[in-house]
């Protein structure tokens, strides 16, 4: 279980060196997206105003305040990734996204796509947005403001983390491992509760 401090966006080499269970801190640019942003891009086929090529994505929808014409962070954290699972394929195929930061994980299908395209999923501690907000250096740009708060955010971080590598580029999936363990425990727990099992 290594600990890495990496520059975002991540190089393919950096992504391929990460193994499930490693701890990562990120400096640099991270793009904030979520449901409405992805629906606009891929369901409504609207070309994003900037290139997402090789980017690090964060599943977020920030709390901000507008000071003159700039947005200042109030509280910027992470949302549940699974709702956006079906967008993994177009994101990886069209934009070669190298890392998705979120909470709760993505599906087995997404993990296989990450293996094929050389990408990883970095798990953040959900709900700990106060900590993650202090790791923001600045909000660089905001696009699609009409979707507020589900805009396309360009965020600059200094030491975003700790992030746990939960899906790596070799197809290992920490969530799948935990699920397997939980399934192994399930029958024993049924017995403890007096539930008859076939």
């Amino acid at each position, binding site marked *: 279980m290594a600990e890495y401090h990496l520059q975002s966006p991540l190089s393919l080499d950096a992504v391929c060196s990460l193994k499930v*269970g490693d*701890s990562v801190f990120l400096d640099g640019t991270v793009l904030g997206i979520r449901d*409405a942003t992805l629906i606009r891009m891929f369901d409504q086929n609207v070309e994003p105003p900037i290139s997402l090529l090789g980017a690090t994505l964060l599943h*977020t*929808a*920030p*709390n*901000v*305040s507008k000071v003159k014409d700039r947005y200042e962070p*109030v*509280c*910027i*954290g*992470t*949302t*549940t990734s*699974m*709702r956006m699972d079906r967008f993994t394929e177009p994101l990886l195929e069209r934009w070669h996204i190298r890392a998705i930061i979120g*909470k*709760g*994980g993505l599906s087995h299908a997404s993990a296989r796509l990450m293996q094929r395209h050389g990408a990883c999923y970095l*798990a953040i*501690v*959900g*709900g*700990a*947005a*106060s*900590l993650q*907000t*202090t790791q923001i250096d600045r909000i660089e740009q905001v696009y699609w403001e009409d979707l*507020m*708060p589900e805009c396309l955010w360009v965020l600059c971080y200094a030491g975003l983390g*700790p992030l*746990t590598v*939960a899906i790596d580029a070799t197809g290992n999936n*920490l*969530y799948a*491992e*935990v*699920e397997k*363990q*939980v399934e192994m*425990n*399930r029958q*024993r*727990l*049924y017995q*403890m*509760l*007096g*539930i*008859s099992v076939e």
Partner: protein
Amino acid sequence: MDSRGRAVPATQPIVLEEGFYGVVEQVARDLYIEAQKDVPPDVRAALSKALEEESVPRARAALKVMIQAIELADEKSMLVCQDTGLPIFWLTIGRGLCVDGTRLQQAVRRGTERATKEHPFRSSVVSPLGRENLQTSCGRRIPYIHMEFTDRHSDLEALMMPKGSGSENMTFLKMLAPADGIEGVKKAILDSVIQAGANPCPPTVVGVGIGGTADQCVYLAKLALTRPVGSHNADPALAALEDQLLSVINQTGIGPMGLGGDTTSLAVHIEEAYTHITMNPVAVNLQCWRGVRRRAYIHADGTVDYGY
């Protein structure tokens, strides 16, 4: 008696001053903000205890980050989480108060709007089909305001519980048959927690409703989340069930944020209602590790006591 234990004649109706509804508005505003900044002491204690007992290093690291986030929010007066949730209020009205219910609802709605604009924070509320966000945390039937009544005479209890979507999306209702028995109820609860997995930001508080009508059953599961973490149902059989289920849930291995560990839930709270002879409904509504809630007692004279 009122919430401070002061004797009040039970028969004497209290006509409220004009300023009372302004106080309610201010309290609704403050509760919505404070609920998101100040994690209740019982939740803090439960997280600290979990950290002491957790054996998996990755899970310990996650619990430490949670505690760090709580302390940072205290220090810098920040929201702990970005999810400002659906605003939910429980107003429990003392029997002596002559309350104008419509004005009460308006005051809570204005307080909710003011919290959103004045803090400011994100409005997480949209229309379900058009996905229109009024940027006020309000909309049709939101904030969700429950009105209840108490034997206490001269105060209005206001409980605010913003509900984030990570946990609210993990809600389950099972209309079991009487023949499924208590075993069926236990299985439905355990299966729900396993199905929710990493999504509701574990360690969760597990709210359980048993009995009632279908909608009442889900309501009871949510009501169970308003109790302090670790409190027990007054019925010894339900209290024992709460303990048994918590112990079993914490042996699933789901762990903090679903990345494995001994700490999947901080508490199981059960509330019940009588049900139909042919019914055996059970509902599960989860709360994330922040266990967010804030409470205030607004007295007839406009003074306010705050709690959790």
